[in-house]
């Protein structure tokens, strides 16, 4: 039986509606970032204006957000790199070997993912204060690893499980050690999965606000924390806020577009076809 013609139309209409729901506020915000201060909150909003970069200039130069951008980059790439280095071998071990408590370990790891950061905020604050890890890039990376490593392990384990263990075994019989086999034959196959994992983790670390707020300090606060300062008790600096929001969003969007083929491949890798 043929599907009625209106069915795809309906689906597309729904998709367009949902897309607009997301895009309109973003677009309005992005435009506001280019508005001169006078018309930030003019009512009704004006869309007829000469675009200016004065908001960007203000947040980047005068408010020293280049420093926060740098902090964000350091903490995000650092924590993602560490999470991958620690998580991938763990994921491999959990995919290939059964050992006492391996199942429980996996469940415990996923439970870590379910904890909202706010739950660990206070204990972390006390701990990090004690060990002098507050206002410290490395300290913040450590805190992020709590959430990143479980994500890396769960995603990567899925990719490893999909690969027949005969692939490494074959390489091992053919003259390689297990580690060489992993590097030469398994990792190339799941490279898109690593990219997808890295990107999702990067987005988490890049956007993270709460831990960065309580564990960071003047010198180490990241962009989301800096963005928070534009929401004052008395007023909101809308143009500046949207300028910094754009600075936060654009790198991730560019990264995603740049890696989208790897990303879709990677996200589809774990699925059974």
């Amino acid at each position, binding site marked *: 039986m043929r599907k009625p013609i209106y069915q795809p139309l309906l689906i597309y209409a729904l998709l367009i509606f949902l897309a607009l729901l997301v895009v309109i506020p973003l677009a309005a915000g992005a435009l506001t970032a280019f508005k001169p201060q006078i018309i930030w909150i003019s009512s009704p909003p004006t869309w007829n204006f000469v675009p200016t970069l004065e908001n960007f200039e203000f947040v980047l130069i005068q408010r020293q957000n280049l420093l926060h951008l740098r902090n964000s980059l350091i903490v995000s790439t650092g924590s993602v790199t560490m999470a991958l280095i620690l998580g991938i071998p763990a994921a491999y071990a959990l995919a290939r070997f059964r050992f006492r408590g391996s199942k429980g370990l996996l469940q415990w790891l996923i439970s870590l993912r379910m904890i909202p950061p706010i739950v660990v905020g206070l204990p972390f604050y006390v701990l990090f204060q004690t060990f002098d890890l507050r206002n410290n890039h490395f300290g913040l990376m450590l805190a992020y690893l709590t959430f990143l490593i479980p994500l890396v392990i769960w995603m990567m384990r899925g990719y490893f499980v999909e690969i027949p263990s005969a692939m490494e*075994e*074959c390489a*091992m*019989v*053919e003259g390689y*050690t297990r580690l*060489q086999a992993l590097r030469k034959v398994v990792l190339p196959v799941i490279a898109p999965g690593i990219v997808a994992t890295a990107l999702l983790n990067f987005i988490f670390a890049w956007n993270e606000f709460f831990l960065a707020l309580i564990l960071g300090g003047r010198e180490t606060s990241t962009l989301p924390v800096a963005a928070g300062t534009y929401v004052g008790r008395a007023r909101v600096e809308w143009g500046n806020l949207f300028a910094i929001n754009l600075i936060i969003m654009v790198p991730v969007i560019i990264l995603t577009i740049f890696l989208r083929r790897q990303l879709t491949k990677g996200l589809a890798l774990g699925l059974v076809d």
Partner: protein
Amino acid sequence: MKVSLNDLVKKFPASDSIAVNHVSLEINDGELMVFLGPSGCGKTTTMRMIAGLEMPDSGQIKIGERDVTFLAPKDRRVAMVFQNFSMYPSMTVFENIAFPLQVLKLSKAEIQQQVNDAAAIVGIGHLLKRSFRQVSGGEAQRVALARAMVRRPEVFLMDEPLSSLDAKLRVQLRTEIKRLHQETRSTIVFVTHDQEEAMSLGDKIVVMSKGEIQQMGTPQDVFFKPDNVFVANFVGTPSMNIFDATIQRADGGLCVDLGGLTQPVPAHFPSVSAGQAVKWGVRPEAIKFSAAPSASAVPGQVELIESLGSRQEVFVRAAGKLFSVILDALLPVRIGQSAHLRFEPDSIHLFDAQSGLSLASKPQPKNS
């Protein structure tokens, strides 16, 4: 190179049963040895221990005079072809075959030469530039064979390499493996659950069940002189006709009472005694079928006919038992017609009902 397994035992922590239970055997240099058995019989585990992918709990493995029991797989000089894995998907056909050579630090020209040679032998010389996506299942399995050959291993291990292929390709590749073996005279261990494959390939067959060797011998031995009921049942399609019976005294001698049917005790079972519970067996191919009655024939009726192509399997109800009989397909047989079955004494098998062991007087090859 000769392979000796000495009293191998392997138990997996997760299971209660023993995967490989005191297995000892010798595979001679240049021999194609088939491990045959149902899934879970320990044949693959035994092979994986030879490859070094599993470590035995006890026992010893020797390749030639080298003790390799606890050596890493890479140092054993064996090659393995797997059931569910053929090609490294991130590499081309050429890179696949060259992969085992890369670790040996050979020159580019040498690698090129050896890859070309190996690819030519298995008939994939024209596919070297193809990627994993551009080759068929059969071609990928040939890549695996070439990759196994290129290292010139002392022993080839093949773990059901054909079972994921379709029937026609399977038979074709089986013939090629046989030809390869005859040309190279390399030592090959071949694991399969397909007894037809085992019959056609093996110089020798090891039949395994529940982690133990049931019988080791030539395909003819295993087929015509099964050591026990398991082997008799497992080897041969259709399976042997086997019925419970007892040995009875009858006019001075002994006979086999099958319940409603009495048969003489053939001469090659001198050790049976009256009252003994036995299993009486005859292969479907060995039963003489006739439409007309004759002196020693058992009368019956055809119940069912299945065509097997050039042959047909005819089920005959005689003396209350259902016999499977293999006949030429051209022989006219109708359902319901009367049939007379004759059993040649030479083709009769008797097994002890309790132990399942053959009661034949032939010298039993000692194993385990």
